[in-house]
């Protein structure tokens, strides 16, 4: 139905509409009169529906349609007219209450059920268009009451929908509406709707439940009485009814969790939330997978359920030939606790034990029993994923449940669908704070390290970072498997190292006893020094050093070369190797962990102080201002290096101040008054500064996240200044009036745009450049370019720069290319003219929406450069604020004689039209703006990472 509107907004410019308006309704009238048969009329109506209608001509069109409606004998045409009425009443700017009466009138005389349903639909549309009119709502509800008893399911459906969308939320329907005739209106909406829970048509039953849910969504509190009815609907024959009923039961369980309901066929009573939990659990083994997915999903949000019921969901009593059997999970646990960890490889070690009391076995589980066991084994992966997610949600709120569901999640690591495996690894990570892995569980987890999918392995590394283990054997096992992983997939190096870093720092006491073994030291004999470049050795060292950080006695076990290697690694892999308190050595930085928090605070204070100090520089040519800025910039840069928490903020400030400094320098030149031709050199310097400021402002705007409107305004302000400067320069260098004229116009547009965009921020810009400009704006608009330039020149020189206010946290987008490393001496050989694929692996931090903004640039030695847009699927999101780009870049070139290096780097593309200050735009909003935006779109790229050199050698093709 919305097709028509989209069409209008996309294709038809507003002007054209206005021209065709007067003839619109008339044309329709003529067409309809001309129609000789219903088919013809239908054709005309269909054509008409494709064209848009202006808001003020809607009413006329409606009248014509209605007039025709009364005359029309063919029900299909009436149906179309009815649907058109609904569409028309959605026209923006048209208030449909004037046609309600007409539509209700037509209802009374209509015989065709289909048309009735359509008319009610139209009323629904009208009703939702005018939600505030209480009177109209009552009337519509009355109409709905009257038609509820229709024999056609469609009419009943629509009536129920009307109830759901328009039924009074606050109170039962008032008495006076009884005048409407049926007497039913006196009942409240909920009981009317619930009467239709037992309708003979499943579609009507579904509609009734949906209407009820709609009421709930609109804020009406559903009554508890319908709980029993809803529960009965859970065993309906039709899946859409069951699916809606599951939702309904869930809603009620959230509304009345604590009320008490009786268990049928017994005297006991339980909490409603437990009862409904049991019932929804039951639906996890429904015949329809749609219902199963829904039930599994909803289970996750039922956190108020009693732990007893919750734990039942993982319960499955095994039995073999009527003998009780323990599950593999139980066996594993027992083996473990008995101290003998075997893989249970003996024949018949799962042999059934004691005989089961046949009367006690309950094969159909009442309630929650084994719901997740079923869900996790389901045929459809959608159900399995939903079950895994629900497990996660429930486990996060209940540590004891987390402990219990561990085995099941670990089992899911072996699912046949990768998505499910990945999801269960993620889930395990999320609940890993609650749990400690047993050795046999860890063993199963680690087996996945050999998976060929990189995503799975990295997710597992991430999981291991957060995992608690219980014994030193576990650490050994983990290390062993990680090293195996490293040899099998050398590209996982960084990830493995990071994983060991966390593993070490989490379990220092478990690492301590195995240090000699790990470093292969011997109390009496010197052992050969291991190879420092071996990634496996580095991995072991990372583990040991991180453990040693909080275990000072460990260093005593190190041999000499270990210390040497420590020094080396501390330097080369500082992010993986922590500073250690080594005997006989001074620590480089005295206050370590203890003073961390306070040092951040003091750094923050320092940052604030420096900024306020800078603000005292009101006048650009104040003495010492330049040097103060220079010092501050230097301080801030250093601060950013020292305090990683503040790096983004400090960097941002430094860059901002740098822009100010450049402007200051450019303007302070005493040479401005001197005749132009003599000072070409200065001109070049100034224009260079202006260009640089411009570039920096784009970096400021697009490279940093966490900016608020105020900071963006400041950035735009600086940009405006730079542009003004450019304009002045242009005026001084070029003689031609034409280019100057257009440049001036453009500049004024930009000032205007600035004002429009940052209306709310303007008060903060008092006495600034833009403030002064806006004061004299009317005068500017009329003045000649030469005058404008003069004004600009003076304003630039005599305005102070606005104070920079900082938001909570600014983060700088950064990227690092991990692969290729740029170290390889072996050129990548390929036949010229053909392509070669280069694997690129990079991490991105704090990049918003990288799928659209991040690009890869390849720069060839001859100056050719290619920008490649990676596929959206190449970006993965391992954690908040972080992205991983793993892609292939295709290189190609004509033949070279020698192997040569190319540069590969990442770029951040920006375009000023997507500037954050404009807010998100919907796709078609853009095209409705008649004239092109005032601010012409500027697109560009900012280098995001350091370039990496790759040796390549395109060989000439052999003939």
């Amino acid at each position, binding site marked *: 139905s919305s097709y028509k509107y989209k069409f209008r907004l996309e294709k038809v410019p507003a002007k054209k509409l206005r021209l065709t308006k007067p003839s619109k309704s008339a044309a329709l009238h003529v067409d309809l009169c001309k129609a000789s048969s219903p088919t013809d009329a239908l054709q005309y109506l269909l054509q008409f529906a494709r064209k848009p209608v202006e808001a003020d001509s809607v009413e006329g069109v409606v009248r014509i349609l209605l007039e025709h409606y009364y005359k029309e004998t063919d029900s299909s045409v009436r149906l179309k007219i009815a649907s058109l009425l609904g569409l028309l009443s959605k026209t923006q700017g048209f208030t449909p209450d004037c046609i309600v009466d007409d539509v209700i009138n037509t209802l009374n005389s209509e015989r065709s059920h289909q048309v009735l349903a359509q008319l009610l639909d139209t009323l629904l549309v009208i009703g939702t268009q005018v939600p505030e009119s209480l009177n109209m709502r009552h009337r519509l509800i009355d109409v709905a009451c009257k038609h509820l*008893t229709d024999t056609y399911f469609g009419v009943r459906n629509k009536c129920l929908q009307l109830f759901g969308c328009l039924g009074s939320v606050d109170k039962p329907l008032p008495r006076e509406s009884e005048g409407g005739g049926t007497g039913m209106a006196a009942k409240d909406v909920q009981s009317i709707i619930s009467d239709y829970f037992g309708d003979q048509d499943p579609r009507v039953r579904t509609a009734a439940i949906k209407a009820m849910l709609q009421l709930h969504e609109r804020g009406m509190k559903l009554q508890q009485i319908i709980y029993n009815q809803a529960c009965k609907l859970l065993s309906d024959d039709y899946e859409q009814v069951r699916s809606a009923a599951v939702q309904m039961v869930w809603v009620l369980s959230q509304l009345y969790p604590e009320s008490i309901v009786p268990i049928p066929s017994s005297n006991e009573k339980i909490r409603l939330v437990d009862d409904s939990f049991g019932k929804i659990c039951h639906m996890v*083994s429904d015949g329809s997978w749609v219902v199963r997915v829904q039930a599994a999903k909803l289970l996750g949000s039922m956190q108020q359920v009693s732990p007893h019921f919750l734990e039942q969901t993982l319960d499955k009593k*095994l039995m073999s030939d009527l003998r009780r059997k323990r*599950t593999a999970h139980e066996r594993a646990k027992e083996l473990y606790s008995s101290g003998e960890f075997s*893989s249970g490889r003996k*024949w018949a070690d799962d042999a059934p034990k004691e005989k089961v009391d046949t009367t006690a076995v309950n094969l159909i589980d009442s309630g929650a029993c084994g719901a997740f066991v079923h869900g996790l084994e389901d045929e*459809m992966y959608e159900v399995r994923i939903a079950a895994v997610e629900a497990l996660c949600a429930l486990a996060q709120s209940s540590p004891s449940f987390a402990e219990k569901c561990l085995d099941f999640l670990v089992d899911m690591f072996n699912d046949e669908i990768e998505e499910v495996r990945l999801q269960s690894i993620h889930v395990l990570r999320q609940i890993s704070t609650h749990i400690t892995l047993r050795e046999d569980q860890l063993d199963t987890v680690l087996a996945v390290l050999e998976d060929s*999918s990189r995503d799975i392995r990295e997710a597992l590394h991430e999981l291991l970072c957060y995992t608690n283990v219980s014994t030193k054997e576990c650490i050994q096992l983990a290390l062993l498997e990680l090293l195996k992983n490293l040899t099998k997939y050398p590209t996982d190096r960084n990830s493995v190292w990071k994983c060991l870093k966390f593993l070490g720092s989490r379990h220092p006491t478990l690492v301590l006893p195995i240090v000699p073994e790990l470093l292969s030291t011997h109390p009496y004999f010197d052992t050969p020094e291991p190879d420092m470049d071996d990634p496996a050795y580095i991995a072991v060292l990372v583990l040991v050093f991180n453990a040693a950080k909080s275990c000072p006695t460990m260093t005593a076990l190190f041999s000499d070369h270990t210390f040497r290697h420590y020094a080396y690694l501390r330097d080369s892999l500082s992010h993986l190797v922590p500073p250690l308190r080594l005997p006989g050595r001074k620590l480089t930085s005295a206050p370590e962990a203890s003073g961390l928090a306070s040092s951040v605070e003091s750094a923050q204070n320092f940052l604030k102080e420096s900024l306020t100090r800078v603000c005292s520089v009101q006048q650009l040519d104040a003495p010492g201002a330049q040097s103060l800025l220079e010092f501050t910039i230097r301080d801030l840069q250093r601060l950013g290096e020292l305090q990683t928490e503040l790096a983004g903020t400090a960097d941002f400030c430094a860059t901002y101040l740098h822009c100010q400094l450049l402007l200051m320098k450019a303007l302070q030149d005493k040479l401005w008054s001197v005749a132009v031709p003599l000072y070409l050199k200065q001109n070049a310097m100034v224009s260079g500064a202006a260009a640089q400021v411009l570039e920096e402002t784009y970096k400021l705007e697009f490279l940093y996240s966490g900016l608020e409107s105020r900071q963006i305004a400041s950035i735009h302000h600086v940009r405006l200044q730079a542009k003004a400067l450019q304009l002045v320069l242009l005026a001084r260098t070029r003689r031609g009036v034409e280019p100057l004229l257009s440049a001036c116009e453009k500049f004024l547009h930009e000032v205007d745009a600035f004002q429009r965009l940052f209306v709310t921020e303007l008060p903060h810009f008092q006495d600034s450049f833009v403030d002064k400009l806006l004061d004299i704006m009317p005068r500017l608009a009329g003045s000649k370019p030469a005058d404008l330039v003069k004004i600009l020149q003076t304003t630039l020189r005599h305005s102070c720069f606005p104070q920079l206010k900082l938001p909570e946290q600014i983060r700088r987008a950064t990227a690092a290319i991990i692969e290729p490393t740029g170290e390889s001496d072996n050129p990548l050989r390929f036949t010229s003219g053909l392509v070669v694929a280069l694997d690129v692996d990079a991490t991105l931090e704090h990049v918003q929406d990288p799928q659209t903004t991040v690009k890869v640039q390849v720069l060839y030695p001859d100056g050719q450069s290619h920008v490649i847009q990676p596929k959206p699927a190449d970006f993965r999101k391992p954690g908040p604020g972080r992205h991983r780009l793993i892609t292939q870049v295709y290189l190609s070139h004509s033949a070279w004689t020698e192997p040569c290096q190319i540069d590969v780097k990442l770029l951040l593309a920006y375009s000023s039209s997507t500037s954050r200050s404009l807010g998100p735009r919907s796709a078609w909003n853009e095209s409705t703006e008649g004239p092109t935006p005032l601010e012409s779109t500027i697109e560009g790229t900012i280098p995001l990472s350091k370039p990496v050199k790759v040796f390549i050698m395109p060989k000439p093709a052999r003939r």
Partner: protein
Amino acid sequence: MPEIKVTPLGAGQDVGRSCILVSIGGKNIMLDCGMHMGYNDDRRFPDFSYITQNGRLTEFLDCVIISHFHLDHCGALPYMSEMVGYDGPIYMTHPTKAICPILLEDFRKITVDKKGETNFFTSQMIKDCMKKVVPLNLHQTVQVDDELEIKAYYAGHVLGAAMVQIKVGSESVVYTGDYNMTPDRHLGAAWIDKCRPDILISESTYATTIRDSKRCRERDFLKKVHETVERGGKVLIPVFALGRAQELCILLETFWERMNLKAPIYFSTGLTEKANHYYKLFITWTNQKIRKTFVQRNMFEFKHIKAFDRSYADNPGPMVVFATPGMLHAGQSLQIFKKWAGNEKNMVIMPGYCVQGTVGHKLLSGQKKLEMEGRTTLEVKLQVEYMSFSAHADAKGIMQLIRMAEPRNVMLVHGEAKKMEFLKDKIEQEFTGISCFMPANGETTTIPTNPSVPVDISLNLLKREAAFGGPLPDPKKPRTMHGTLIMKDSSLRLVSPEQALKELDLNEHQLRFTCRVQLQDPYSDTDTLSRVYNHLKSVLKGYTVQHLPDGTVMVESIVLKVSSSAEDPNTKVVLLSWSYQDEDLGSFLSSLLRKGLPP
């Protein structure tokens, strides 16, 4: 009373030679026609003489339905159709139709060529038999004749396994064949809609077992294989050719793929290659994963699994070999086992139960020294593992299916009597109103049914009746209506009396009741009449009561007349006359007047 009769010829309280006869609505259907693996004599096949002593079966059976290709469900088919004689339709699903003859041929070869039996069906007979097969699609309703229809549902278990619903009118039977309620690596789970059959005939192989999650078993299996291969050992997996073998292949294949393993996997060929071909073709019958990914790659086109050659067994280095037969009693699997048994690095994994007396059984019971033919002993050093992969529903699964189908009765077949008893009790205990049967072979179970009889109602009559009552028919409240039931040429129609008269060309006869009521009323006749008139007028509000000039009172169509009695002028006789349509009102009036008139 209509009834359904079910008689198992095989599989009654037993596993093997499934063959169940069903009589429903005058139709006779044979469900499955299998052989028994435990016997080599006549007991091998079902006793068809139960149906007829001599002559062909064609005239006694309306159709034969085969649930899946396992020999205990289809092994006796050529014997029945070609040697006993049956020419009617045989229904089975497409994959079953494709794979069944391969297995039958293999069965024939072993029996005739190896064991040297005579009087067995020939290859030609298998071919002729297969010509009588009509293929079925899932959820397709097939009309066997005008009244009998059958419909197949997915059953898991093996490729092409189906459950069938047999329906005559409103009576229906569901036969499950073998089914699996938990999905595995290549097949989905059985599914049926709420078809509410009169009787559900279910297999009950695992009636007393509740199984652990499949995943643990799979993981164990993979871990064992992986560890052995990493150690450089060889793994022997004896399998039966079809069904489980494919599942294990997929399991290993995907694991190899996932873990990037390089050790070779071999499959000792035979009929497997042909069967694998069919597995590739019938993708729609497999599970979600295989169905969704086959466009990129058909999972049954194994990358890592290659055909085995006898000479490979001596190759150095790790390898995994699937070899037939499954119980290590002969053939290739035994040969390979003999070669590898001496090395403790190697491993044999038994993926199913083994019959007593086979090498497999000895191994599983822990024997370390095996006596081979020729008085040699074989020392077993390799590791022996046991891994159960079974594709039958366990007790919970059976209950789940019953819950899904909501039958009125359940019959258990294909299982051991003792186990069935437990499940029978459970079913009757946990489902209210479902009775459960477990007949032995040859024992007939009769289930009375209560079929609804469809009647065509004339639209006019329906509309007329609907006009009286409320606007909507309430499905919960029965309503009475007047009409005439016409039974003609086995069709039932409900029409209005007028129409019935017209159709049957009968004259309408008026039936009137008259009755005299004596009243003590000391007035003149006319006065009494008007008193009666006034009295009725006051009592019967909403009825038309008329005082006619000819000295009668009419209430609707009821006529009242008053005359004095000859003996006593004070005793008035009121004559009432009404037609039978107004019986209610008439008898009401007569009893009213008997009470006398108010003063």
